């Protein structure tokens, strides 16, 4: 009969109208992201051996690092910059990192007002506390 579908639809919406709501109240209640979420990068400079693998694997030339040799002819990280505005957050760099110095973190509120602020100085950022990512990153 014509109208059956209409009444069924009305019944569904009425059921949902009285049902619970699924909204996440975001700024008040922060979402609990799974440990593998790729939402920003974190670096532990003491672990970094400046091998440059991350620079090479990055598909978008996001990472830019310089190093200098210390007394023992060992390379020491000097600067480590990421142009996060170009970053795809694909995670290839963290997978290639042999020492686990570069990690993905779950800090997801990355919006900034100016484009220049997207040029992250990872060493400076590491001084601030970053929530570290899960075991594999």
């Amino acid at each position, binding site marked *: 009969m014509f109208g059956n579908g209409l009444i069924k*639809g*009305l019944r569904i*919406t009425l059921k949902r*109208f009285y049902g619970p*709501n699924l*909204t996440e*109240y975001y700024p008040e209640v922060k979402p609990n992201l799974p440990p593998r979420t790729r939402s920003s990068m974190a670096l532990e400079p003491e672990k970094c051996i400046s091998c440059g693998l991350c620079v090479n694997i990055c598909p978008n030339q996001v990472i830019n690092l310089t190093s200098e040799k210390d007394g023992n002819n060992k390379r020491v990280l000097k600067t480590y910059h990421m142009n996060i505005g170009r970053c795809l957050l694909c995670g290839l760099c963290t997978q290639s990192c042999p020492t686990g110095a570069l990690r993905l973190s779950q800090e997801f509120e990355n919006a900034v007002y100016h484009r220049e602020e997207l040029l992250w100085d990872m060493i400076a950022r590491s001084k601030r506390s970053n929530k570290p990512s899960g075991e594999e990153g």
Partner: protein
Amino acid sequence: MDALNNVFVNIAAYIRGLFADSHSLSADLTINIIVFLMLFLIMVVAALFLSLVERKFAHWVSQRSGPNRLGPHGWFQFIADAVKMLGKEDIYPANVDLFLFKIAPMMLVGITLMAFGVIPFGKGMVAINLDLGIFYFLAVSSISTLALLMAGWASNNKFSLLGGFRAVAQMISYEIPLLFSLLGVIMITQTFNLSSIIEAQKTIPFIFLQPLAFLIYLIAGIAETNRAPFDQVQGEQEIVAGPFTEYSGLRWGLFMLAEYGNVVATSAIAVSMFLGGWYGPGFLPGWLWFILKIWLVIFIMMWVRWTFVRMRVDHLMHFAWKILLPLSLANIFLTGLGIYIYQLFIPRIGG
């Protein structure tokens, strides 16, 4: 209860009493201005509040919480909306027909406000107790087509013009079943006066005598107020916003005001024609019953809106001319037959 029932009537009588001659020109003028302001306030507050309720409803239906920032559970959001709309820039594009562009939203609001004049919110609580109440309502609301067309044509936008054309086609078509569906009630009561029609429903609301007419009225009323599933005029998905595409800020706000004002007016007419107006169980004052019944009709309209999808424009026309119109004519015929039989039998039974 009686005092509560007549509180507004008594206030009006008191204000009249302040004048030496309670029916002088100045007394009438004062009362009329007060009533006008009251109606305007009712319309503005109802429209603003409805725009919030609509969003809340839409979100509840889809299991979300809706606006939830301002006030308890976001129930003060409409104030923020009003302030935002007042503060926005009034943009008008190049090459619009400036006069028509500017006057169209004002005209629409004015027409809606005019329609509010005959709505009896309670016993004796009607701004103008016209003999022709319901006919006046229909006559006035028929002009709103013109305002929508003005907006659509003056905007100098192709989407707007399409919207304006759709407004003409749709609203003129649906006016006919709307009018005819009300005719049954008028035949029974033999009057156009809304207050008398409500008085006649003291024993039984006309929805029980005229269920088909109520259904037709509700459908045609939804179509007249341009709400889904009949919101061809501002079909977002095809013609962006129809006649409102180029409007911004307060002018757009006026359109929304008129839309929700129309919703309230249409529901109020439905309540007074079919649902027994201010009559209800005695524990609440009459005007509260009236308002609660309006909310019931608005709830149905919103429920339909957030469940159904939009009809196609040619199906819409078919629906009006091939289904609703014959049905409403049949309803008139049946009503006439019923009245005849009633008059034939009642004297013999001894009623």
